[in-house]
């Protein structure tokens, strides 16, 4: 097993030890799912086919959102707080002298975390939703495969965005403000509150082009069968494009950060 695979496994295992937190999280996601599902039902009763979804698709969208909420780390967290703290305290010095790539290391660890969260926190709310609501499920196994692939790329995009937030700590020495702004932006532009395709005009068009839509909107649309054929490939390429651009930006910024900025203390 390669180093980064081992790091991913340890990320998975680490999060799997917090059992009470997992149970509490499942409960929270389920309650929020219920509240949002009934809100969406009221909304789609008034405006059927809003954003091109029928009511069943809209409710399905809610439960996909709850299943992916923590997986794509909408509100940040995971490696983010840990690495910011390491930069602030100066412990990042240890990460830097190791013969391992800082970004690849934390990406691997975050992928491990996301894999655990998809399984540990995603399945139960989705089953709950499927049990009590009429959901639109993928028609073919292949759709499931593309959905999982899309979620995986979504996690990478989410990581790349959060990594940029973390790097700001090299200059600001405190990631609190940027983390909050980033969390709000992610909440809105990922489509977690409302699907991006219900936003009208320019706002909607821009929102759908921003990287955050790769976190939830794109995977959800693949799940719901909105994208098919070449549209599906285009959707995946859109996500992958953002992943590459953002990871690359993070890399460049990381090089500047480690060269220019004093490693704190000690």
């Amino acid at each position, binding site marked *: 097993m390669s180093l980064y695979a081992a790091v991913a496994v340890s990320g998975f295992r680490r999060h799997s030890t917090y059992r009470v937190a997992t149970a509490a999280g499942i409960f929270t996601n389920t309650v929020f799912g219920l509240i949002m599902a009934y809100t969406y039902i009221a909304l789609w009763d008034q405006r059927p086919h809003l954003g091109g979804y029928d009511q069943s698709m809209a409710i399905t969208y809610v439960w996909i959102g709850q299943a992916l909420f923590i997986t794509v780390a909408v509100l940040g967290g995971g490696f983010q707080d840990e690495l910011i703290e390491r930069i602030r305290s100066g412990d990042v010095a240890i990460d830097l002298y190791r013969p391992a790539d800082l970004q690849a290391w934390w990406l691997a660890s975050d992928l491990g975390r996301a894999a655990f969260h998809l399984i540990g926190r995603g399945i139960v709310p989705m089953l709950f939703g499927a049990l009590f609501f009429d959901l639109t499920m993928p028609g073919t196994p292949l759709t499931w495969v593309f959905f999982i692939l899309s979620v995986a790329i979504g996690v990478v995009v989410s990581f790349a965005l959060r990594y940029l937030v973390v790097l700001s700590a090299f200059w600001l020495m405190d990631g609190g403000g940027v983390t909050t702004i980033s969390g709000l932006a992610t909440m809105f532009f990922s489509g977690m509150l409302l699907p991006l395709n219900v936003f009208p005009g320019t706002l909607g068009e821009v929102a759908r082009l921003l990287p955050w839509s790769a976190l939830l909107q794109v995977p959800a649309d693949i799940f719901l069968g909105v994208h098919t054929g070449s549209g599906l490939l285009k959707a995946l390429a859109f996500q992958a494009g953002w992943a590459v651009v953002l990871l690359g930006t993070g890399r460049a910024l990381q090089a500047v950060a480690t060269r220019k900025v004093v*490693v704190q203390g000690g």
Partner: protein
Amino acid sequence: MSDGLIELDGVEKVFDVRRRAGLLRRERRQVRAVDGISFTVPRGEMVGYIGPNGAGKSTTIKMLTGILTPSGGRLRVAGIDPSRERTRLARRIGVVFGQRTTLWWDLPLRDSYQLVRRMYRIPDDRYRVNLERCVELLDLRDLLEVPVRQLSLGQRMRGDIAAALLHDPEVLYLDEPTIGLDVVSKAKVREFLRSVNTEQGMTVLLTTHDLTDIEQLCSRVMVIDHGRLMYDGGLAELHAVGESERTLVVDFERELPPVELPGARCERVDGPRQWLVFPAGSSAAPLVAELAARHPVVDLSVREPVIEDVIARMYAESSAVV
């Protein structure tokens, strides 16, 4: 050039520090953390690198690992320019920070070591031999399955030292490896470091505030203050250079007038107890013999000079000369 494993030639590190000066105005000020340091450490030597807080020790270590880029001068470790080839160098050096851990908080020691093995691509047989050796000498057998967060400071420190040695580094940097440890743990760590140095011929650079570390481990000591190398030589000569003094605390049976002895002066008297000061370079034995012959002595102890005092005195002197 000589065949030094660590070579510094006029190395400098200047930081820009911004300071508030008024409501909105910020003043830029340059701090020379390391100000033209040159030294060479040959292969297999164990060197103490000491100085007060903020002297530039950690900055030097960070430059030697490649985390910080020198602002000037030339720096080589095993022939490698650290900041240019940090990753290549990392495979050949080991670093232990007393105040930080290189282990993973949530993982048992064994899992941390497995990550280290993969990171440094340590061959299986080397890994087994090295781990076994560390486990044996650092007494880690019962700790391997314990998550790092549950280890005591002394246990964690031993775990950290093992982690730094699994990949057979040529150079080991130790940044205050005994800080906060109890006497037993300190002794264990020192014993292990001595064996690593003498048996494996590993080159060791050790920073510490504990003079005993240096006395027991290093034949050579370098003193840095205000970013400059104040002294580079043997420990005994350091005391002579720093005019450092030891103190003999004597409890007599009864109150006595201040005793007068050749080679010592009485610094303080408090009832039957007296403090006699003598040069650190000379032995306490003749003094004690002389005292016991002349007066009824109940108890004695010798206080070693504090390294900070030695350095402070040295610094005061050198700035007087300059």
